[in-house]
């Protein structure tokens, strides 16, 4: 089984996004996939257009929230959905290339709009097997 994967975990009113990766960067990429999957089926999104993002935070957990919030902002203002992510981390600085396409309601059947990433169930940590976990609850 590949180490890199994402999943959702339940929160009473909202949804938890969790990314698991061989590296911290990959865990952040997987968490981003989980974020898009809150809205739509990932296989329905085509990586047609690339945008670049960067953010910076005092610690790596806050950085995860900032990363997801940067994506939420781009989704909202560009009206796009993203399904491919390349994250680079240097200390507390994150830069990323992100691919996706314009939202098409008829094709993407968006379930819900994500309002923001939260500090609830927020965790970025190395697991016993050396892989990384990055998770938090997002408000929908």
């Amino acid at each position: 089984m590949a180490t890199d994967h994402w999943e959702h975990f339940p929160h009473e009113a909202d949804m938890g996004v969790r990314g698991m990766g061989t590296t911290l960067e990959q865990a952040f990429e997987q968490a981003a996939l989980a974020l898009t999957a809150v809205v739509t089926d990932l296989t329905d999104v085509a990586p047609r257009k690339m945008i670049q993002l960067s953010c910076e935070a005092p610690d790596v957990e806050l950085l995860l929230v900032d990363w997801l919030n940067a994506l939420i902002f781009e989704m909202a203002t560009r009206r796009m959905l993203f399904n491919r992510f390349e994250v680079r981390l240097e200390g507390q600085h994150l830069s990323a290339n992100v691919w996706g396409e314009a939202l098409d309601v008829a094709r993407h059947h968006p379930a819900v709009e994500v309002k923001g990433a939260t500090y609830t169930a927020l965790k970025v940590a190395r697991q016993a097997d050396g892989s990384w976990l990055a998770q938090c609850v997002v408000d929908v």
Partner: protein
Amino acid sequence: MDIAQFERTSEFAWHIKPFGRMRVPGVIFASEALLREMDAKVYEQVTNVAMLPGIVGASFAMPDAHWGYGFPIGGVAAFDPDQGGVVSAGGVGFDISCGVRTLHTSLQFKDLDAVKTRLADALYHTIPAGLGSTGAIRLDAKKMDAMLRGGAHWAVEQGFGEEADLERIEEGGCMRGADPAQVSVQAKQRQRDEMGTLGSGNHYLEVQQVTEVYAPDIAAAYGLKLGDVVVSIHCGSRGLGHQIGTEFLRQMVISALGYGIDLPDRELACAPINSPLGQNYLGAMRAGINCALANRQILTHLTRQVFSQLLPQSRLPLLYDVSHNTCKVETHSVGGRQKQLFVHRKGATRAFGPGHPDLPAALRQAGQPVLIGGSMGTASYILAGTRESMQRAFGSACHGSGRAMSRHQALRNWHGRQVVDELAGRGILIRSPSSRGVAEEAPGAYKDVSAVVDSADQAGLARKVARLEPIICIKG
């Protein structure tokens, strides 16, 4: 929830004695059955809020309380600025001033017979709903700031709705003290195309009928009788509010220690009311309230247009507009003295009692209408603030039914089409761009709103006035 953790002080009030760093007690208002079903996280969050500086009275949770962010959803807490009291972005929430407004229609249920389907289609066509939907209004920088300062007042000036609507909105439709300069460029950018949109998730526009009247005298004062058709709109401050929440939550998390606040949970991020960050947030949050009030005002105008085309005999005056996610400066009696407090209501409704000077003259003797939204396909309720409610939890009541299961679980249990068909079989027309969204919001995924409202009534938070049942639901 383990009820042994509480001291039961009345049939519907459960106290948590202060322990550890708690400055005040915790109080949950609920029936025993609702409390037992409540997530254990609510207990943790109620006690965490009780640890915040300057909290007054108690940390309260309403009968619909569930696991939120820092504060429970259904949480109420008041802070005294003279005792180091704080304002919390988490205590207001992302969807600033999310709320409900209810419009009369001057119609009876039978008047809809011939036009029900056409009305559902026309509302769905006219009200922008769901992710990616845009409104017809584009605001440049100057107009954006005017909207953020003026709220529903601004909307009426722009031709959306009527002057008479304003007195039926909390704060007379315009939250004073809004400071658009504290709202970031990003927050304004997120709102540029979203004025007059419903949003998604649990937001909706419903055509409803009054199916039961519990307090005829108050119902009469509210202009409600059995069989009346009303329209309720549930939505908030859209992208602008979400972005304000996101940005200030982050700033408050980072600066809390600098203000000497040791947070029991990062999501409780707050700043002293008397601090630059606290004041900046209040200015931005009040602008967010105005955005929500303007948004609901524009949706009201669109609704009236649809009704006037299909049902020209109808008139849609506003009954009332309540906000759920706010922090407001209010005067309350504390230990026999009148104090100005900053009251946070996170997923809770203001419920001012009869005679309160903030209520419009026509409603003052009856008490404030408390509009409780159900979930899609279930009943909604109208309650009234009472004198008692002012003593219980700073004039506050519940706001809705609250989820009983996660979206995740709901998706396993239902398909959107099946939910729509089942409701259609009961005569309820659902219109939504998202089948998955409908499944996640299935009526069975929510707690029984009737049990929540009964608890609020019996706990003395607000008095039951009327029950509404859905006819048409436009779902984001």
